[in-house]
């Protein structure tokens, strides 16, 4: 019980509270700005947390994660442009509601559903993460190797790219992680004699590039798009009738979102889609969905915010990111010299619980901010892109430089940005690249340790029940969807002939 209380006590620090308040406001602004999202915001802010102690540094990043995920709903409802990908399904019913003059009601429901989803997921995080860590405590290198492989296999379904392209992007990310001096043998690899490459390619500049600078180039190609803002008079709490209609949806979506978030690499976007679909499937009036159903807003928002807590479970307990933003937070943990994984709950339990409690506080903070300040935050959607993105670029470059005070990192960020833009253009998601870069070194290290442990008889990995279990899960994650599609194709001609 001590770490739980110690974590809570950490929130008594006025400095931390002030930082959390500022980060929550910052996160809401980032989420409300079209084009910026939680991942970009966290990646841009990561270098500026380096001079801080680990608790405030990581608490800031998680605050950005939670509040920006919620704030995506503001632009989704008011200008039919999801502030974050996870809010795409909120547009479907939020914008029609706003067009009917009920923007306040839609935003009120988004705030309530997001808060309930967020608080629910943090409670699950507090219970599940230590249990998962305890289960994983006795894992040996082969189990860790298989688990990391499983985490990477989940990259196939991340983002908006196709599974194959995601895997290729993830593979390239792992490849970039191999640049530098090999940790196992101290042999130089792909360094070309360059001193800067000895330590490898830093994942922070790459993240700034692929999430921040590549988005700038994406915005360059959408300058012609005119956005129409719906005016909002007031923001009201949902009515009693709205609560009666949506409480089951909110609870169901909170559960779905948390579960999806826990799956490695699956984040808020997938959660909101499933949450929305389930809300529609269980609704008494499914025909209203897409035309302004308040349940649609509730289902989508509860799911995407509950995925934030869920995504932190594998990130902290296993060291495998649960989403793209969790990958940035994982990078932050590593930069601060913390070791995410089972040991975190024995060696740094106070730290872990301080992060949990700060996430809980942020979910409550954005409830009040959402209700009182949504009208103000909505004004941020009016900031012209020609003013916003030059500032983002300056922050990106200075952030990339600040990490090691090295111009080499600036070039890495710039090249990663251009590479990320072209990857996105050709259908390759950049999220697997970033996650592959973080997990690549770990994967090779665990393979090497496994080979030492098994006397280089790699096939013995299949004789270990847990390792085999993760390999089966990996195979299912990679080939399951294709097999299901193939099976459905085989069945469909029979159905049609029957008709």
């Amino acid at each position: 019980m001590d770490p739980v209380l110690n974590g809570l006590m950490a929130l008594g620090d006025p400095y931390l509270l002030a930082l959390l308040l500022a980060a929550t406001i910052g996160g809401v602004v980032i989420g409300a700005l079209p084009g910026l999202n939680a991942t970009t915001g966290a990646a841009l802010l990561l270098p500026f947390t380096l001079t801080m102690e680990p608790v405030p540094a990581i608490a800031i990043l998680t605050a950005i994660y939670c509040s920006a995920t919620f704030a995506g709903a503001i632009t989704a409802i008011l200008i039919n442009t999801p502030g974050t990908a996870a809010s795409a399904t909120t547009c479907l019913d939020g914008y029609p509601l706003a067009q009917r003059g009920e923007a306040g009601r839609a935003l009120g429901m988004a705030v309530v559903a997001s808060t309930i989803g967020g608080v629910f997921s943090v409670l699950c995080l507090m219970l599940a993460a230590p249990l998962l860590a305890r289960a994983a405590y006795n894992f040996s290198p082969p189990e860790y190797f298989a688990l990391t492989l499983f985490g990477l296999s989940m990259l196939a379904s991340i983002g908006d790219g196709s599974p194959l392209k995601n895997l290729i992007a993830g593979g390239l990310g792992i490849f970039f992680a191999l640049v530098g001096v090999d940790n196992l043998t101290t042999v130089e690899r792909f360094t070309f004699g360059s001193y800067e490459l000895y330590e490898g390619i830093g994942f922070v500049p790459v993240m700034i590039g692929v999430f921040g600078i590549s988005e700038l180039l994406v915005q360059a190609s959408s300058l012609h798009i005119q956005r129409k803002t719906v005016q909002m008079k007031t923001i009201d709490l949902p009515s009693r009738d709205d609560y009666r209609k949506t409480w089951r949806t909110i609870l169901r979506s909170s559960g779905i979102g948390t579960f999806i978030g826990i799956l490695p690499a699956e984040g808020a976007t997938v959660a909101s889609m499933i949450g929305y679909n389930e809300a529609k499937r269980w609704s008494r009036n499914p025909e209203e969905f897409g035309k302004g159903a308040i349940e649609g807003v509730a289902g989508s928002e509860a799911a995407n915010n509950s995925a934030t807590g869920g995504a932190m479970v594998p990130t902290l307990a296993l060291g495998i990111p649960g989403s793209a933003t969790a990958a940035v937070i994982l990078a932050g943990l590593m930069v601060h010299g913390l070791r995410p994984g089972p040991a975190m709950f024995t060696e740094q339990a106070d730290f872990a619980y301080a992060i949990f409690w700060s996430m809980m506080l942020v979910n409550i903070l954005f409830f009040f901010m959402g209700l009182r300040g949504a009208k103000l935050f909505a004004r941020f959607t009016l900031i012209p892109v020609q003013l916003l993105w030059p500032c983002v670029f300056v922050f990106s470059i200075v952030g990339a430089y600040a990490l090691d005070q090295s111009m080499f990192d600036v070039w890495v960020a710039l090249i990663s940005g251009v590479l990320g833009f072209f990857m996105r253009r050709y259908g390759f998601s950049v999220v697997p690249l970033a996650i592959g870069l973080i997990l690549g070194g770990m994967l090779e290290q665990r393979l090497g340790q496994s080979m030492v442990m098994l006397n280089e008889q790699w096939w013995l990995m299949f004789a270990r029940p847990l390792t085999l279990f993760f390999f089966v899960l990996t195979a299912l994650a990679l080939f399951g969807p294709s097999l299901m599609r193939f099976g459905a194709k085989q069945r469909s001609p029979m159905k049609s002939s029957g008709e």
Partner: protein
Amino acid sequence: MPRTPEPRRQFESWLIPALIILFCAAAFWLTTMFKTMPPVLKRGIQPSDFPQLLLAAIVVLTLVMMWIDPVRVKEKLHGTTLGTIALFVVFALLTSIDLFLALAVFAAALAAYWGERRVIVLAVMGLVVPVAIFFLFDMVFEIRFPRGLLTNIWYE
């Protein structure tokens, strides 16, 4: 019912996989030049083993992608995007004179290129934003920026 013909493949559907495979081939060739460790020191795997396995997997995936999920581009590359990339090059060249001069020029030029016409706003983008960020990082975060034409004025 007549079958609709499949859309003609764009040159990118060959070019992108070809670039990936070329990159992997070049990287594979580089791995053959890695030092080979004696059995006692190799710690399970040789330094070239994992990269070679990975590169082979990427090539196989790329070949499968060409077959079942070729690269398709929905819209042409916008001139504004190419212009913005050209501004990146200008930025990179100007950093040799001074990082903050490069940032100031880039911020003002990008704002103007993307449609901002108010001179005062452009001046704010080119002067106030970089200067404010410079002092924020120099004085609050104690980041020392690389010496150049403008930063020398402050540091000396």
